[in-house]
């Protein structure tokens, strides 16, 4: 009988069919509903397993750790996921955590003299390398016929972007919330990821799982997805209740270090697909594979990776998301 290590939990709900070693799940500090499940222990409780949560600072770290085999399930942006798959890391995408829309944007600093994309030439732009915003920045530059050699792109993690922005050592930045929200008051949004996504180059944050683990622990995976979907659903249905004073937002704030007051706004910028959307054409049903392939092709152009696979569909597992739909859950 496996005990969970989450605070205040009861004996595991559905008894596991097979004794499972501790499951290691990696997360990042993006702001989304399932963080509540981490913090409150509801995910551990729902799956009935001891879960070791590991926080990573970037998608690149996540995929390195996945490659080593120490992490079973993790969250990463579409760009690092495409890299991992192209590099034959044995993982599959099984859940779209959020479609990236307005919560990632390219912002020009007031006083930098940048009014439009064309003004970026000769300017310094900060972006966390190997992230979804890095990918989108390069796409945006290409779409605006700006050579990467004509701009200075600096590898800055979000916290360094804020510091550099304050010191006026960068002219623009392509970054996500909460840092995005901190810099927009003193800048102009040139482009959001949503706008780029609409040109057919969407980015998203997804959950990936080690294939061997997924095969051997299908039950766990189903319970896990179910709980994540439940939390997403709760947010969608009761958005107003997830206000700054709510227990949920406090839990998220505690885990990510974000200011509770900002959290409702930031979450509002995301779109969290429901199970039907998950398996639909636009995401796991086909769109995600296409987006990953596009991303990979782009990275190969940039000489960051060597190979682009013909079909990224083989790296996508729809079963777990589909299991929710089959049971008619959870869309009311």
């Amino acid at each position: 009988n496996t005990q969970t290590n989450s605070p205040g939990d009861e004996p595991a709900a559905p008894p596991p069919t097979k004794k499972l070693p501790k499951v290691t799940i990696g997360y990042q500090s993006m702001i989304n509903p399932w963080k509540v499940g981490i913090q409150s222990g509801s995910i551990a409780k729902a799956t009935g397993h001891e879960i070791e949560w590991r926080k990573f600072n970037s998608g690149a770290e996540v995929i390195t750790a996945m490659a080593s085999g120490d992490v079973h399930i993790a969250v990463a942006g579409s760009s690092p996921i495409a890299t991992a798959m192209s590099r034959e890391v044995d993982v599959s995408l099984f859940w779209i955590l959020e479609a990236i829309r307005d919560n990632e944007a390219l912002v020009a600093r007031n006083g930098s003299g940048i009014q439009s994309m064309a003004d970026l030439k000769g300017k310094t732009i900060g972006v966390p390398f190997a992230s979804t915003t890095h990918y989108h920045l390069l796409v945006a530059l290409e779409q605006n016929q700006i050579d990467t050699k004509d701009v200075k792109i600096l590898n800055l993690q979000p916290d360094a972007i804020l510091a550099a922005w304050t010191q006026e050592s960068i002219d623009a930045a392509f970054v996500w919330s909460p840092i995005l929200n901190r810099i927009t008051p003193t800048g102009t949004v040139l482009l959001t990821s949503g706008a780029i996504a609409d040109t057919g180059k969407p980015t998203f944050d997804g959950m990936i799982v080690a294939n061997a683990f997924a095969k051997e622990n299908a039950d766990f995976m189903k319970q896990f997805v179910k709980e994540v979907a439940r939390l997403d659903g709760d947010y969608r249905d009761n958005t107003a209740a997830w206000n700054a004073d709510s227990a949920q937002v406090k839990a998220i704030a505690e885990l990510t270090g974000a200011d509770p007051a900002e959290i409702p706004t930031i979450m509002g910028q995301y779109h969290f697909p429901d199970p039907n959307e998950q398996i639909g054409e636009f995401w796991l049903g086909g769109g995600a594979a296409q987006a990953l392939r596009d991303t990979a092709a782009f990275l190969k152009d940039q000489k960051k990776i060597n190979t682009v696979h013909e079909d990224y569909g083989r790296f996508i597992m729809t079963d777990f998301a589909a299991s929710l739909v089959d049971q008619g859950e959870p869309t009311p």
Partner: protein
Amino acid sequence: MASHEVKDPLNRRYSQRTTLIISAVTTLAMLLIWWAATALGWVKPLFLPSPQTVVQRLGDLIDTGFADATLWQHTLASLFRVFSAFLLAVLTAVPIGILMGIHDFAKGLLDPVIEFYRPLPPLAYLPLIIIWLGIGEVAKVVLIYLAMFAPICLSTRAGVRAVAREKVLAAATLGASRLQIIRHIVLPGALPEILTGMRVGIGFGWTTLVAAEMVAATAGLGFMVLNAKDFLATDVVIAGIFVIGIVAYGFDLIMRGLEHWLVPWKGR
């Protein structure tokens, strides 16, 4: 050199106590400047929080902690890593160093390996270590271990080479076997340099700690500082640096004391 104190036309020597007092005064003066700089608003708190804030933060860190662990837990996690690595390093580097000092064959065999990896930045091979060994304690300890291994091993080798040939020959004429020579002559003879190597090694270990705790740690002083940096919590960063500095300095003192105690003949 004799310790005879003669009037030196160059050096102006003070007593050890005077030097200590000067040091204490300097330290106080620096704290004062820091306090003034923040109290008078010369620098923004984001850049440099006031000493009071840092001290208060330290109190908080001890009571309630940061990033899900108290200061004590962070320190313990780091101590555990540095120590396991140190133990492993001593247990492997000393015998290998002795072998390299004795056998030119072992030297030829291992020199290229050690000389090549020694100057490499741990951060450069950290990605490889993570891919190979994962994100658990093993990878962290190995990274610190590697940083410690080279100095301990090379000092041991140098120490063995520095053992006066007369000592070894004397033991041989007194009927010592090869093993007895190693056990009774080479090991104690090289001890001063082995201890120096251990001291340098433990210093390297602390320097590598933050790198080791950069990826997927859940506690540790380095993790705490990095985590604080992500949230621009400069006060925690500074408090963390102080704690690391004090612990590292404490170790250095312990190692020096150990030297003093174990090899009182050093330099005589």
